[in-house]
């Protein structure tokens, strides 16, 4: 993986599934894959309940032929630790969830979940009947522009605790012991990630927490957003220094930010707006990382984002994900030609909106082989599907995808 990250030709394309919350696998698919490979039966751990991502344990990682493992924050999106596992029946599938994962099922079948597992608080997430993921319940206090205080939107950005540092150090030690590449998510450097704005991890979020209001605020309250980002950046960099002091250069890359700048057909903002509102903070974080560590900087953004790639590079990002080739202007060969020597494409391996969930295994194989032929030459490619493997994806298609990558790599695979 390190060879690929350094834009040199590796002996084979490295594969990632499960190292981050944007390259993961839905718990139902993890269970299906474990069954397919004949691994030890038993409930799968849901290590990230917001997207219901299943933990990829070492035996599955080996069976799938993966090359990367992850380091995750101590707490989940709902603010409780991913620890103290207990059984839970997820609509017919027995899984393990963290001890503080506390829910209530409504009469219509919707499942509500509570921040920090506190049932006395208002629920912060809802999984409708018919869905397989939680989404945030927006809890937006009335906004008085005269009283808006950036500190209200900074509650979640605090100095890293000793418990967090201990967890990171322990997780890194475990991850590095497996001989895999390591992608680490420390948290705190995502500037305006719309999944985090509603703060499903907080009991009483203050400030601007409504998604629509936040988007409009990037235009109408830009000074307020700058003040949030400015302070968040300072706290984040102080935390990175403390984390690096603990773990050194043991991890290969750091998940910096998952803010989406692209839609299926367009973008969420113009390039000038990006450069005015986000670029300075990315540049400072990535600049610190490059000046003080050997970590590569990982940027996730869905959608049509080719227009931002030059700015991403200039801001110090080394890796882009998920490389949504189905979005406008994201033609894979053109991306490789223009940016392949300067950006690592971590993703783009197969479409998860159409081909993987709805195609045939043969269609999956053909698309995967085409993408490998485009992205693999000269390194700079870590194979991953375009975003997480979603619930409902046929396991035979997932296996067809893995077989195709291993076929391209010239490696035998079950």
């Amino acid at each position, binding site marked *: 993986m390190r060879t690929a990250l350094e834009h040199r030709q590796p002996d084979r394309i490295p594969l990632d599934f499960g190292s981050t919350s944007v390259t993961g696998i839905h718990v139902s698919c993890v269970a299906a894959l474990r069954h397919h490979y004949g691994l030890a039966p038993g409930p799968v751990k849901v290590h990230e309940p917001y997207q219901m991502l299943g933990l990829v344990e070492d035996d599955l990682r080996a069976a799938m032929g993966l090359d990367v493992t992850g380091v995750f924050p101590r707490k989940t999106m709902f603010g409780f630790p991913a620890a103290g596992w207990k059984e839970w029946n997820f609509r017919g599938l027995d899984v393990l969830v963290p001890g503080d994962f506390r829910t209530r099922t409504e009469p219509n079948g919707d499942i509500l979940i509570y921040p920090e597992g506190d049932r006395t608080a208002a629920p912060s997430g809802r999984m409708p009947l018919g869905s397989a993921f939680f989404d945030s319940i927006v809890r937006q206090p009335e906004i008085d522009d005269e009283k808006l205080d950036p500190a209200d939107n900074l509650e979640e950005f605090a100095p890293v605790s000793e418990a967090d540092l201990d967890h990171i150090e322990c997780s890194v030690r475990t991850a590095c012991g497996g001989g895999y590449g390591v992608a680490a998510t420390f948290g705190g450097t995502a500037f305006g990630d719309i999944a985090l704005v509603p703060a499903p991890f907080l009991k009483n979020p203050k400030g601007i927490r409504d998604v629509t209001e936040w*988007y409009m605020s990037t235009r109408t309250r830009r000074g307020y957003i700058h003040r949030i980002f400015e302070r968040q950046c300072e706290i984040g960099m102080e935390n990175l220094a403390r984390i690096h002091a603990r773990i050194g250069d043991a991890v290969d890359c750091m998940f910096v930010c998952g803010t989406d700048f692209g839609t299926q057909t367009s973008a969420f903002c113009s390039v000038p707006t990006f450069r005015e509102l986000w670029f300075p903070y990315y540049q400072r974080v990535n600049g610190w990382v490059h000046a003080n560590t050997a970590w590569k900087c990982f940027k996730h953004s869905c959608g049509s984002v080719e227009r931002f790639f030059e700015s991403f590079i200039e801001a110090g990002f080394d890796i882009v994900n998920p490389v949504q080739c189905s979005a406008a202007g994201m033609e894979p060969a053109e991306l490789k030609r223009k940016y392949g020597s300067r950006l690592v494409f971590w993703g783009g391996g197969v479409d998860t909106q159409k081909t993987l969930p709805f195609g045939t295994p043969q269609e999956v194989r053909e698309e995967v082989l085409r993408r490998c032929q485009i992205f693999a030459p000269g390194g700079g490619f870590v194979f991953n599907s375009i975003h997480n493997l*979603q619930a409902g994806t046929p396991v035979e298609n997932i296996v067809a995808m893995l077989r195709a990558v291993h076929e391209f790599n010239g490696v035998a695979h079950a």
Partner: protein
Amino acid sequence: MPDLEKLHAAVIEGDWKAAAAVTHAAIARGVAPLTIVGCLVPAMDEVGRLFECEEYFVPEMLLSARAMKASMEIVRPLLAAAGAEPVGRVVIGTVKGDLHDIGKNLVASMLEGGGFEVIDLGADVAPERFIEAATARHANLVALSALLTVTMPSMKTTVDAFQAAGLREQVKIMVGGAPVTQQYADAIGADGYSESAAGAVALARKLVVV
């Protein structure tokens, strides 16, 4: 018509306070509600055009939609009292299981700004609720939105429910959302698909005159 020029500008600039104030002033001067709607429609068409040519992005669209709604909320009761007929009546919502409604909200606003009466059922809407609303409100158009591959089948379920209820001839059904395609729309028997909010208005206008 200086008021209406200001209203046009307020919608394009996304200034909801100005849009509301100008609308109040226009009504006080005796401007007919339909004349005000006649100003909002081209303003939102222009917003759609700016979005299509990427001078506007989602935040600007949301601001313009809010400004248009601020005006429409003042005008709507007057339109109803005058018995004015909309271009068409649309029941819109995200399908069962899907809570992602930003795209749907933009489409709803663009349709309302395009002269349609919009009955917005919100997010996570079961097929029977679409049917109830379409029947009760005499809608001639139903707009379904989905963001997730896992909820896309709810679109088919909803189309099938209209068929089973014997209402398929009365309403046109249009679909949209990130993973949705024309091919999928055709496969489930929908009447139309649009990949953008502005395109949805053009599609809706086409469907209601067919």
